[in-house]
């Protein structure tokens, strides 16, 4: 049935091998770019075929495992290299290959003339391969391989401009923070395997087996421990509090990388993982609460920081963190389908936004370069009035912004509103629900505000760079524009496959296709909820309409405020900053979280390492090693005296040895 599914990860891997091994020899950028983008396009075609085949099956049969070979077999432990094809993994491979292909295409033009062009594409292909492994793996261990693989590629690509110290540092920061999360992932894996094996004699790490045996698990208790460990892994990979600070720094990488890895795909791996193991998470109300609270906090917190940043990519980075917070909020309230839906729509509009910002930066960079200006090409304070210079980029950017702001009719509205409604109405958190909804709604308003602030500062008003440079601003080439148009189109229409039920009923009974499509993946959770759901959720259509209206209203207020502050009356922000300098400084400096981490964790670690180095390593370890060497030298100094170089001495020693040995045998 799914015989050719192995092609999906293998094609990018072949691209990686070709570009990685021979890219330096090929040199021709067109060839390298074509190989890399073509490989991902091939994966996209195969993914489409896989999805088509999956859809042709009945909804209950949409689960297939394709085993290629046994990877590790040790006693009761067994891990295969096998792929799991179900609606969830299918939607993921569609996102990864589709968005991935567009971004590869975009990169050909964006990275033109960069040193190490082949290296960039080799990494990008390796990333795509790892991401496929992550989403397709049918067991936790294979997923972990992909998990680590994408982490590695993320590190390599953040540090792509490795000659810049900030880029290298950002790469290391991302890697180390991800390691903290991976640690949690592994602990969760081990605990789950050990617990299921020792208490129920179910030694498995395969997702489908785990789902079937999940009814053996208790509610809470050890499951809370396991799921919290997994959630720690998710916070690292998906940049949630407390491990989110690496993502804004990751913007040191090339912009398409930010679009692919740090917005559309890799950072959603944590969401995917929770959705994949929903039957575990649903069994621990405590973990769900933690996830929901952390998700909501992250959404709100990152949104506040986003309002005061001036670097265009940083705004988008905090926006990504905030949107990921929404996804985790969805996971935390048990709305797995809505979370995955938001994952998908977010992939569309955030990739579009990043690529659009990349086009702007590219254009700005070229213009500033021509004018021999050293202004920062990413600083929005230098931009403005780009609307007329780059009309297509502006149009696509605006569409994606409207989508993320949650204006009705665009994809972001459907997914975000579904999450907010579920946050309000879910049966898990009781009175906490209103708080969760409130935080989400305020974050939505802030999102609308800072996104439109970005648009207004970048595309409206007067151009703030020197007139000389201004003449060099121009629309990007076709290869850059096409992905923008496609992604903008998807940002607009992508939401219509998952229209919320209340709207669907008004429009004449359109079902929520997306939710139905994902139903088989979450059926174990639903079974559990139908048994344990103590006080079912709220089902009040009028209330839902009301909340929807409220969130839209909040978004519109955000937009209006942004318009008022940054278009019609640009003096206010300055006054505002002057009025509350401390507040602005705190927000501008990201609430000093990095400094706090430095103070609380990094510096103590450094001093402790310093102690280990100077105190322990140099004296004890080196002392032991050098001591051994020195004693050997002293001893050999004694034995060296025996090496007189005189033949008679050697002969005497030999004869003596013979006599001793003979005597031993005689006297024995």
């Amino acid at each position, binding site marked *: 049935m799914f015989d050719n599914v192995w092609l999906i990860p293998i094609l990018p891997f072949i691209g990686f091998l070709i570009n990685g091994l021979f890219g330096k020899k090929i040199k021709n950028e067109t060839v390298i770019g074509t190989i890399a983008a073509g490989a991902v396009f091939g994966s996209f075609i195969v993914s489409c075929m896989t999805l088509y085949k999956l859809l042709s099956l009945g909804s209950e049969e949409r689960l297939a495992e394709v085993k290629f070979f046994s990877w590790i077999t040790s006693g009761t432990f067994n891990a295969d290299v096998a792929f799991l094809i179900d609606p969830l993994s299918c939607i993921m491979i569609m996102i990864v290959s589709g968005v991935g292909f567009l971004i590869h295409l975009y990169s050909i033009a964006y990275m033109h003339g960069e040193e190490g062009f082949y290296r960039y594409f080799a990494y990008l292909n390796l990333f795509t391969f790892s991401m496929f492994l992550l989403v397709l793996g049918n067991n936790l261990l294979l997923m972990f391989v992909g998990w680590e693989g994408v982490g590695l590629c993320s590190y390599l690509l953040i540090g792509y401009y490795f000659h810049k110290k900030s880029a290298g540092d950002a790469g290391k920061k991302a890697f180390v923070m991800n390691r903290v999360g991976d640690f949690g992932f592994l602990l969760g894996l081990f605990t789950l395997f050990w617990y299921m094996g020792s208490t129920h004699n179910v030694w498995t790490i395969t997702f489908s087996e785990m789902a079937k045996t999940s009814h053996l698990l208790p509610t809470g208790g050890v499951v809370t421990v396991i799921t919290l460990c997994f959630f720690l892994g998710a916070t690292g990979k998906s940049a949630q509090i407390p491990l989110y600070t690496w993502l804004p720094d990751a913007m040191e990488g090339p912009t398409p990388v930010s679009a692919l890895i740090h917005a559309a795909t890799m950072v959603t791996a944590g969401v995917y993982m929770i959705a994949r193991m929903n039957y575990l998470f649903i069994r621990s109300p405590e973990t769900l609460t933690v996830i929901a609270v952390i998700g909501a906090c992250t959404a709100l917190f990152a949104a506040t920081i986003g309002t005061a940043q001036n670097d265009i990519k940083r705004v988008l980075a905090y926006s990504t963190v905030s949107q990921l917070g929404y996804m985790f909020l969805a996971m935390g309230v048990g709305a797995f389908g809505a979370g995955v839906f938001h994952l998908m729509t977010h992939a569309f509009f955030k990739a579009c936004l990043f690529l659009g910002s990349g086009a702007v930066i590219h254009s700005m960079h070229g213009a500033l370069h021509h004018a021999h200006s050293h202004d920062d090409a990413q600083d929005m304070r230098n931009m403005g009035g780009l609307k007329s210079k780059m009309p297509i980029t502006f149009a696509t950017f605006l569409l994606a912004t409207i989508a993320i702001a949650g204006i009705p009719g665009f994809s972001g509205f459907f997914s975000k509103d579904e999450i907010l409604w579920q946050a309000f109405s879910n049966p898990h958190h009781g009175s906490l629900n209103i708080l969760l909804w409130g935080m989400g709604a305020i974050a939505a308003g802030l999102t609308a505000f800072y996104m439109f602030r970005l648009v207004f500062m970048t595309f409206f008003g007067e151009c703030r760079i020197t007139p000389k440079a201004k003449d060099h601003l121009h629309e990007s080439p076709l290869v850059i524009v096409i992905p923008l148009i496609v992604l903008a189109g998807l940002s607009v229409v992508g939401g219509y496959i998952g229209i919320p039920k209340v709207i669907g009923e008004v429009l004449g009974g359109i079902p929520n296709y997306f939710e139905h499509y994902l139903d088989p993946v979450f059926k174990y959770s639903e079974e559990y909820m139908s048994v344990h759901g103590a006080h079912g959720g709220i089902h009040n259509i009028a209330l839902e309409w009301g909340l929807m209206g409220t969130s839209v209203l909040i978004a519109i207020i955000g937009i209006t405020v942004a318009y008022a502050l940054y278009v019609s009356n640009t003096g206010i922000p300055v006054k505002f900053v002057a009025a509350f300098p401390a507040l602005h400084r705190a927000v501008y400096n990201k609430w000093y979280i990095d400094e706090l981490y430095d103070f609380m964790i990094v510096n103590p670690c450094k001093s402790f390492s310093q102690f280990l180095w100077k105190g322990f390593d140099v004296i004890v370890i080196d002392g032991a090693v050098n001591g051994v060497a020195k004693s050997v030298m002293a001893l050999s100094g004694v034995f060296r005296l025996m*090496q007189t*170089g*005189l033949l008679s001495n050697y002969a005497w020693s030999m004869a003596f040895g013979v006599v001793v040995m003979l005597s031993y045998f005689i006297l024995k």
Partner: protein
Amino acid sequence: MANFNGYLIISAILFSIGTIGVLTRKNSIVIFMCIELMLNAVNLTFITFSRYLGNLDGQIFVFFIMTVAAAEAAVGLALIIAFYNNKDTIDVDEVQLMKW
């Protein structure tokens, strides 16, 4: 029976004398001759036992030892000559390049 003991004692004495010679002399040719003496002492033992046990294998062995000794003499003396050409002496204590 008794008279075989004499041969064996003689061979042991000759072997020990050869050993002492190898250990005490510095002249490499004399050392070489002492080694020949030791070989011959062993030969005498072989032939004595061969005769005593009524088995010719020992004598065949002696034959081969002689062959090896001849080859050894040729190569060994060539080595000594080469050494003399390089060092102008055949004193074994001068052979000490391997010394630390």
